[in-house]
């Protein structure tokens, strides 16, 4: 069976299904065919595939078609122009900075949510998902209210790279937290206690037992965060302000190209961004699959 790109279907804990852990597939469906009476399976498969093709596959195929339509030369020119390269640089720098930041603080937050206990923790847990629920343009304005020209905290980040970073850090905040949290909940604490009783110090237990078992989850959250950063548009438009070479990210550059009616250029940049997202997600898939297999072997 081919694996789906984004991992298993979401469990109840995942507010957005992309948070679901890669690597573990749902069990194969039972053979019973109670609900398959009207029309055969192949007919309903056909109808579903037709709908998905019309909505998803045809538009994406059109991008590929448009990108190669002008020939390899035009494609290369579009993705290697100065403005395109600057936009890639700004996008990738921001994505790396924000993802590293998320790995550290996401891990800490998940730790506190699972292992610590204090009044208001449940509320904090609900609040973590706010960035997913907030429309991206609202996020952009919220960021402006805090870090814009009337900043009450004295931080003026509008039209600066750190302005883009805080906006991206806001929208991707839940990703690492929600990837690590379920794994941390499942971890067998007996092993930690055994290590401690054999004389291992707190930091030693943390670095040689807890962190290694959390690493796959942290990496999977980091991958999702990176690919969301590469794709993000709405939350950075007003706070970033599209300053070329400083805050203009690739998705803004694509929009500028479309507005200048350079559809081939826009399609070419889109292909590059899509390739980055897919590469990251497939990498996660492979890593997740490997960890799952190792766990199976350990359990057997």
């Amino acid at each position, binding site marked *: 069976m081919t694996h789906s790109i984004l991992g298993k279907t979401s469990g109840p804990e995942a507010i957005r299904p992309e948070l679901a852990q890669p690597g573990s597939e749902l069990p194969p469906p*039972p053979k019973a065919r109670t*609900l398959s009476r009207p029309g055969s399976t192949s007919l*309903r498969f056909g109808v579903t595939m037709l709908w998905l093709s019309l909505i998803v596959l045809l538009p994406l195929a059109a991008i590929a078609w448009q990108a190669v339509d002008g020939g390899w030369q035009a494609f290369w020119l579009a993705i290697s122009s100065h403005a395109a390269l600057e936009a890639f640089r700004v996008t990738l720098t921001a994505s790396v900075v924000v993802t590293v930041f998320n790995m550290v603080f996401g891990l*800490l937050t998940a730790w506190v949510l699972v*292992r610590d206990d204090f009044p208001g923790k449940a509320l904090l847990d609900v609040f973590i998902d706010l960035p997913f629920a907030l429309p991206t343009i*609202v996020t952009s304005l*919220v960021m402006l209210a805090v870090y814009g020209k009337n900043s009450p905290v004295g931080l003026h980040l509008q039209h600066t790279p750190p302005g883009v970073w805080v906006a991206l850090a806001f929208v991707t905040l839940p990703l690492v937290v929600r990837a690590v949290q379920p794994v941390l909940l499942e971890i067998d604490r007996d092993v930690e206690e055994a290590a401690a009783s054999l004389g291992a110090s707190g930091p030693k237990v943390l670095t040689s037992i807890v962190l290694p078992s959390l690493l796959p989850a942290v990496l999977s959250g980091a991958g999702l965060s990176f690919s969301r950063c590469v794709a993000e548009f709405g939350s950075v438009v007003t706070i970033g302000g599209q300053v070329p070479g400083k805050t203009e990210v690739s998705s803004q550059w694509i929009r500028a190209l*479309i507005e200048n009616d350079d559809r081939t250029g826009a399609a070419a940049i889109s292909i590059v961004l899509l390739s980055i997202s897919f590469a990251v997600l497939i990498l996660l898939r492979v890593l997740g699959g490997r960890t799952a297999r190792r766990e199976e072997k350990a359990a057997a």
Partner: protein
Amino acid sequence: MKSLPWARYLTRYVVLAYIGVMLILPVILILWRTFRPGFGQFYDWISTPAAISALNLSLLVVAIVLPLNVIFGVMTAILLARNRFRGRGVLQAVVDLPFAVSPIIVGVALIVLWGSAGALGFVENDFGFRIIFGVPGIVLASIFVTLPFVVREVQPVLQEVGTEQEQAAATLGSNWWQTFWRVTLPSIGWGLTYGVVLTTARTLGEFGGVIMVSSNLPGESQTLTLLVNDRYNRGAEYGAYALSTMLMGVAVAFLVVKTIVQLRRKRARQA
């Protein structure tokens, strides 16, 4: 593992400070900015003709997107959960695909497919049915980005409940529709509810995909999120904050529903 008390408190307060600065402070600030001039002014800004027509358009888009996603989503979920067939893995991958695509790229894809110079440009050129820069474009972009939600929420529930009750109903002589309506639908109720909430919230909040394919004309093709952006660009910052606060209400409603669904699932599992 016994953590040192000071380390425990240090991590707790670092995390609280992080969430406080990153999440809570911004939200409080925007609420304060919105309501400081009084509730009357807030109401005036969200009830201008442009705001009302944007709200109507956004609701119209939800009214078109939601039924389509529910029908095709439940159908796809049943197909994936109840059948083994060649191409099942491919189908699952295609369902997941929209999550990996940037909204801006969704916009580009729709323009190069349906635009007047696009691959299927004849629909607009020969039949005069305008898709890009009109409501159909907004609807197509919204369906694209919300397509996985219903499938993703309903499919695991279907797999969990199994087929025993459906088989029992079939044995007792109920036809396909009766089985679906009386047995299957009630059992996927909460999963479907959550899928519907996710779809609605995302459709109302979608910006990147919509800005690409809309002509952004007030009263015609300007949704709520586009109006927020438009007001900000025209310097009407307060108006943009007021609408943002209104949209934040949707986000809060979403979090409330999500919490309820999670609590019910936990209780159902324990029972």
